[in-house]
């Protein structure tokens, strides 16, 4: 087997046993990266030298018989809104061009402590606002399955990097589907964890109450391994949950069958507006789970009709407040401000530093929070959020997990939706509910439609990542989908 196709666990054990040199493995990944990156543009920064130094350090310790971590030699790509000390972190924006954080995000500290090799920072929609990675100031990323199509977003660089073998694993962030969308479009596995399970310390904020950092991988086992490394309480994130760390990998087959597991198919996810081929693939996957002993039923969540509007109002409102910090003074881009007073200098830097979608969201968020409209928009959206939460809680009394398509369509063409922001927002219709409610949701590949990957989404109650992994793993083991390296 080509070491490039090794699962992360196999890379780490081979490195630990001295069968595979971390440096040799890294060089093979870098060679692959140099071959495909000109086509994909999945990275904003490649940290080749840092990666080499880390790999050499691991090899030296293995030689000396010293202990190495759970991810020894595993090559990880990190989304460019997650801070790596001393490495440029742009968030896909011109306004952060040149910014070098003085600290590591908690997830990065944890990766390093387990001897992961960080290969670079991945491309993304500016400040994670988008579903196609076309809104990056550093050019769009292309889908490894079809270079004319988008990889999904906003963690499109991470999705493309994992699908194309530019990294073994990747971190993304998911505010309204930004891990699950590129996972579905690129044919990889991606998880949005329970709100508060993974520390957000060092994640550049877009919409704090919705977002989580999430693992992306070629298979469910690797995704579970990466979550085990990054999850856990962190006093530096005040929304971090005080939960015991768990080894999610050991939970995958415990107990091994899906006997008696109750699966609810969300009706609203399977209706009109879903591509025929996507619906078929998802029904086939549900059928496979039923064949494994699961009990399948349908469930209707009427409030989902309001989820997208509520999500966008909340996300934009939080964004307009979070992005007020970019003034051009302390880091990143600053326009020339000769003769301008503070307010005008600030407004000019922001005109030149922010892209169109970011400005759209700042303006709308400012509107939704302004006097006279706060109650009609922001507060109303938060009440709808309560309604949706209540409906999910009720549904989870009847079902252990809820399923449907991650995305209502397969990857679309670059440029196809960029002129119409509302049409682009509509793509997130199946992913935003999990963020509003704060529950775990995974996207696992479940076949192709017209040659493009389709993702099955599995959601569970808060902190039941073990359940979503178990269902995803059971499906994966049927062998109906095998990871394919593209392009």
């Amino acid at each position, binding site marked *: 087997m080509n070491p490039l196709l090794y699962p992360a666990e196999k890379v780490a054990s081979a490195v630990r046993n001295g069968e595979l040199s971390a440096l040799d493995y890294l060089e093979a990944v870098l060679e692959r990266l140099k071959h495909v990156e000109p086509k994909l543009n999945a990275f904003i920064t490649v940290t080749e030298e840092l990666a080499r130094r880390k790999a050499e350090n691991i090899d030296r310790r293995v030689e000396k018989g010293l202990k190495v971590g759970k991810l020894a030699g595993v090559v990880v790509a990190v989304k460019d809104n997650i801070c790596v000390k001393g490495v440029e972190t742009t968030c896909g924006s011109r306004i952060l061009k040149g910014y070098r954080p003085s600290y590591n995000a908690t997830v990065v500290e944890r990766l390093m402590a387990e001897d992961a090799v960080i290969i670079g920072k991945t491309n993304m929609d500016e400040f994670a606002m988008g579903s196609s990675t076309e809104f990056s100031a550093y050019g769009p990323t292309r889908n490894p399955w079809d270079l004319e199509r988008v990889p999904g977003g906003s963690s499109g660089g991470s999705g493309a990097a994992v699908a194309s073998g530019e990294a073994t694993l990747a971190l993304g962030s998911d505010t309204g589907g930004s891990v699950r969308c590129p996972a579905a479009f690129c044919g990889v596995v991606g998880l949005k964890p329970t709100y508060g399970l993974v520390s957000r310390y060092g994640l550049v904020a877009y919409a704090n109450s919705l977002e989580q950092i999430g693992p992306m991988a070629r298979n469910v086992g690797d995704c579970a391994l990466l979550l085990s490394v990054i999850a856990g309480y962190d006093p530096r994130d005040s929304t971090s949950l005080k939960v015991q760390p768990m080894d999610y990998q050991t939970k995958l087959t415990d107990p091994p069958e899906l006997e008696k597991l109750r699966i609810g198919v969300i009706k609203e996810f399977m209706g009109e507006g879903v591509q025929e081929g996507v619906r078929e693939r998802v029904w086939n996957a549900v059928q496979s789970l039923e064949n494994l002993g699961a009990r399948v039923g349908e469930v209707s969540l009427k409030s989902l009709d309001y989820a997208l509007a509520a999500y966008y109002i909340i996300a934009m409102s939080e964004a307009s407040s979070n992005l007020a910090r970019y003034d051009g003074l302390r880091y990143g881009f600053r326009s020339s401000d000769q003769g301008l007073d503070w307010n005008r200098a600030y407004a000019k830097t922001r005109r030149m530093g922010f892209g169109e979608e970011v400005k759209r969201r700042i303006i709308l968020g400012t509107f939704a929070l302004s006097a006279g409209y706060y109650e009609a928009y922001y507060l109303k959206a938060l009440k709808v959020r*309560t309604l949706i939460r209540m409906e999910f809680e009720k549904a989870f009394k009847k079902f252990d997990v809820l399923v449907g398509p991650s995305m209502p369509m397969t990857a679309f063409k670059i440029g196809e939706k960029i002129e119409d922001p509302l049409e682009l927002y509509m793509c997130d219709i199946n992913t935003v509910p999990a963020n509003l409610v704060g529950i775990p949701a995974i996207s696992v590949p479940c076949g192709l439609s017209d040659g493009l990957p389709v993702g099955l989404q599995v959601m569970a109650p808060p902190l039941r990542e073990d359940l979503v992994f178990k269902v995803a793993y059971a499906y994966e083991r049927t062998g109906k989908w095998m990871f394919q390296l593209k392009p």
Partner: protein
Amino acid sequence: MPRKSRITLKEIEHLAWLARVQLTKREKRLFKEQLSSILEYFDKLDEANVEELPPTFHVVEHYNVFREDEPRPFPSDIVLKNPPKMKGRFIKAPRIV
């Protein structure tokens, strides 16, 4: 409750000023159309009967979280490389008045 489904150029200019983000002429014209259709879509929430429900600001119960008020080391070599305009060890800001 006041609702809007059209937004005027003047309102966009005012919001842009509040948010301290200048817009180009093209953006103003474009946003007038786009934001109006997005706001029209948001009107969907009018159908939801939620007046009696409490708002969910956060899915996690929130309390004040305090830490010890102790100084922590600060890697000034990296931090001071970041500001685009410096004078000695000071950040040069635009004029206030």
